[in-house]
């Protein structure tokens, strides 16, 4: 098997941080993928002429993935280039890998990890930690997975190459979103009562009734998310307009 080298591996991970830099509606992350693969392509096409241009054009067409898992595709494509896999197969691979990387990443990061980290940090703050401790905890926890996924993805992509799709399906990462569902529910439920007491402290109501109202409202949010979501945003906007209109008056 070809060797990637530590320098190139670090370069690929760092460049993967910029993969969304020129995100657009035509090629999505295409240019970002081409940019990320440049160090590998340059070392393969040392003359920097037509063959490099051709390789770049192959990789800067349509591509999209979850940004944190983009290293899976970047590393697999780098290995394919080193092994001189033909362009048709590379194109087929790119089309096939877009959906699994996007779905897995969206479910794991946006729908599980980010809310868990944000709510856990909020819980820390509500429990009496200094604000900067809560913020630092969020940043550390959240980015541990961010960077961890990028490094793991690079290793997996490089090891499996063209077969990385199958390896991704068999990896423990695939089941992780489901495993994080209960922790997410526990953190959400744990945050609600102290948050309700803190935000509702000026209502004059007792703690038990405040918490009960907040729980009932959360149940409405779970039951009718579309309506409740609009109500929450609209309530905030209209309420603030009422408050501004009230101006100098005192209730």
């Amino acid at each position, binding site marked *: 098997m070809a060797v990637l080298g530590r320098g190139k591996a670090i370069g690929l991970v760092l460049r993967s941080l910029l993969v969304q830099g020129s995100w657009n509606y035509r090629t999505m992350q295409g240019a970002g993928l081409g940019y990320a693969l440049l160090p590998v392509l340059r070392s393969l096409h040392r003359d920097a002429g037509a063959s490099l241009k051709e390789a770049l054009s192959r990789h800067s067409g349509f591509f999209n993935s979850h940004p944190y898992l983009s290293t899976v595709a970047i590393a697999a494509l780098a290995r394919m280039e080193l092994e001189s896999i033909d362009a048709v197969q590379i194109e087929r691979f790119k089309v096939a890998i877009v959906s699994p990387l996007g779905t897995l990443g969206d479910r794991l990061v946006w729908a599980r990890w980010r809310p868990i980290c944000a709510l856990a940090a909020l819980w820390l703050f509500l429990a009496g930690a200094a604000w900067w401790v809560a913020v630092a905890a969020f940043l550390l926890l959240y980015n541990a997975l961010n960077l961890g996924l990028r490094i793991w993805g690079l290793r997996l992509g490089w090891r499996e190459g063209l077969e990385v799709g199958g390896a991704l399906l068999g990896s423990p990462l695939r089941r992780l979103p489901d495993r994080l569902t209960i922790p997410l529910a526990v953190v959400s*439920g744990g945050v609600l009562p102290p948050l309700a007491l803190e935000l509702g402290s000026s209502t004059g109501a007792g703690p038990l009734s405040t918490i009960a109202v907040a729980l009932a409202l959360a149940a409405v949010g779970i039951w009718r998310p579309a309506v409740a979501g609009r109500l929450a945003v609209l309530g905030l906007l209209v309420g603030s307009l009422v408050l501004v209109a009230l101006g100098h008056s005192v209730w």
Partner: protein
Amino acid sequence: MWVGALLEIVSLSQLPIGAARSWETGPASVAAVSLMAAGPGGPSLLVIAGAYGVALAWIGGWTVHGLRHLNSRLVAGGRREAYSALELSLRHLLALGLDFARAALFTLAAVAVAGRVVPDLQVDAGAFAAVLLLVVAGLALGVDLRMMARSRRTWLAFAASAVVSGLITVWLF
């Protein structure tokens, strides 16, 4: 911190998936926090800062949408000839720079507006604002959970955790 927490809860269900036009909460949070920090604090200002943040996040989402169209021309302009390595790098980095400039200008403008508005705000409607915050936070947390997880087991875990946490909170209150 409270403005950030409120915005986070309200915006968690806005998932930045694929080509979806989602809220841009970064500049919005900075501007909302600046509004809160410039004022006397309290639940009324928290509601106003939260609403300001939500409105900015929505507008920010549109500016990102516009930039994505501009990026289409910049890096995928339909040119027959492929880009050279240098040209692709420059175009990609230029798109990044434009995004940075967009976000910086948007944040500066929003902070400047907040700075002009706050000195004129003398709102003291604590009870009304507190009820509103309670309603918004309760509904938004429920929506967040439903958007992320849809099984009955999850909701039971949520309820059990809320009851235990509620009892501990009341005991400590």
